[in-house]
């Protein structure tokens, strides 16, 4: 089986999800793999630690143009006689992986949760309320890996970085502007998420949520009404119609736990819920619960987090 892996390596470090994908690909292949990527990263050699043997990089491409990147991935796949193409199930992967699959008439597993078992790939369906085992019967497979699905390998290995020299044509998409909303950890990559709902009463009360998230090294999220009322930016909204996340720890404060909200967070490893209402449905989905007022509980959590950080 020949496996290649396509990642987005832009940014000042190699994104966590990209390192996971390279790790995953080399585990699938049972040995070092070829990575295909784009942009100006100077850190590509470090991917040897995750099991890359060669990186083919299209330096001239700096933006996500699905057509250019699809051509890049398919060219490399052909050159390497790849039968499996691993991608990341993130914004870049979603612009590229299904296109690669359509071009190569390959079955596509969107959001694999781990290595295959008996040739079947597990993925979330019904917004995390169930999982499906998927079989791919085509000669070529495209597997998009869900972020936070496997631990990153930290091995040793040397990498040959090669520049892609083919012609990818002109980009049909141009980027006019990038508006950064924050510099923290992107929500889909965060291992700890502190989230607030309507019970937080207003945007002016988010300082505590942000402080706790920061102390724990996590990201902030919110329920849908909170984003709808513009208390928080849209990209923080988690749930059935927002982001689906799978952190190790999800702390929900002043969120009732409606089924549509749970759909986006019920894959979290551990869930802690703070709510004044002991009947809030969220407690049924929780591992830890505190019945209490956010404005009383949050300062105590912040204090405890400061103490923990001082000790470690």
């Amino acid at each position, binding site marked *: 089986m020949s496996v290649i892996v396509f990642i987005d390596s832009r940014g000042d470090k190699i994104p966590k999800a990209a390192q996971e994908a390279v790790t995953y690909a080399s585990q699938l292949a049972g040995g070092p793999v070829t990575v295909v990527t784009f942009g100006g990263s100077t850190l590509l050699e470090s991917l040897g630690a995750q099991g890359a043997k060669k990186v083919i990089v299209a330096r001239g491409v700096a933006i996500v*143009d699905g057509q250019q990147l699809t051509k890049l991935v398919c060219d490399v796949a052909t050159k390497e006689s790849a039968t499996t193409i691993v991608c990341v199930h993130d*914004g870049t992967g*979603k*612009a*590229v992986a*299904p*296109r690669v*699959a*359509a*071009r190569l*008439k390959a*079955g*596509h597993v*969107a959001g694999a949760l781990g290595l295959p078992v008996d040739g079947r790939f597990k*993925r979330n*369906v*019904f917004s995390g*309320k*169930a*999982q*499906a*085992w*998927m*079989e791919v*019967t*085509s000669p070529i497979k495209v597997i998009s890996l869900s972020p936070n699905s496997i631990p990153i390998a930290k091995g040793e290995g040397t990498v040959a970085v090669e520049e892609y020299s083919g012609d990818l044509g002109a980009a*049909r*998409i141009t*980027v*006019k*502007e*990038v*508006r*950064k*909303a*924050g510099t923290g950890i*992107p*929500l889909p990559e965060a291992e*700890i998420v502190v989230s607030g709902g309507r019970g937080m009463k207003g945007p002016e009360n988010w300082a505590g949520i942000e402080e706790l998230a920061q102390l724990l090294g996590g990201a902030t999220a919110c329920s849908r009404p909170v*984003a709808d009322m513009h208390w928080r930016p*849209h*990209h923080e*909204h988690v749930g*059935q*119609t*927002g982001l689906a996340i799978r952190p*190790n*720890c999800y702390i929900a404060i002043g969120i009732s736990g409606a*089924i549509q909200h749970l759909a986006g967070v019920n894959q979290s490893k*551990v869930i*802690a819920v703070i709510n004044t209402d002991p009947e809030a449905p969220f407690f049924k989905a929780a*591992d*830890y*619960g*505190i019945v209490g007022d956010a404005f009383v509980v949050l300062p*105590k*959590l912040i204090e*405890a987090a400061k*103490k*923990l950080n001082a000790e470690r």
Partner: protein
Amino acid sequence: MKILVLLSQVPDTTARIAFTNDNTQYDSAGVTFIVNPYDEWYALVRALELKEAAGSGSVTTITVGGADTDATIRKGLAIGADEAVRVDAQPTEALQVAEHIAAYAKDRGFDLVLAGKETIDHNGGQVGAMVAELLDLPYVPLASKLDVNGTVATVERDVPNGVEVLEVSLPVVIGAAKGMAEQRIPNMRGIMAARTKPLTVVPAAAVDNTGGTVKFELPPAKGAVKMIPVEEAGKLIELLHTEAKVI
């Protein structure tokens, strides 16, 4: 402007999730089906707004599905689509659905093709991108805003920790996410009009089969919740650290 909206049918967001036939099939007994929220609230409504703003053009919906999807398709017409197309095939997998849609859309000169970000049952986020590839068009996933000026579309798309503003020439395929429009509730006039609007059923052509779901499973039941008295709230952090080992 000629707009095509990809409309899929999904179980209601509160529907019970259960499986039959040795967990190989979704148990739809007693389940209400709806238009996939992303397709209805964002893709379709934005398509209608763009048509209204242009003062001309048409909005066609397309669904790959059996006759059991007709009532759901009529909802799209009630909200304001001009006509609906149904490709008569049971959806089994993203590429199959995309090939059916691309076969219909090819050579029909749509300026804009709008899909939802993803279906809330299959959660693939694949079909829009695959249709774009098959039609050799650009595709922008996760779009939270869409404006069209002449032949140029301006699209905002969510990226980690922010928003990217893109420009792309028509024709283009867009994956619509939250923010693109506000839900519209169909009124009586719309519902009446929908009964007489055209719903064309086209036979399914031969398409590729690359696999699909062979089995479902439900997540293991959660253990009991451990309650911490509010006076000792700080203990939560301790437990998350020492017991759950997640912080």
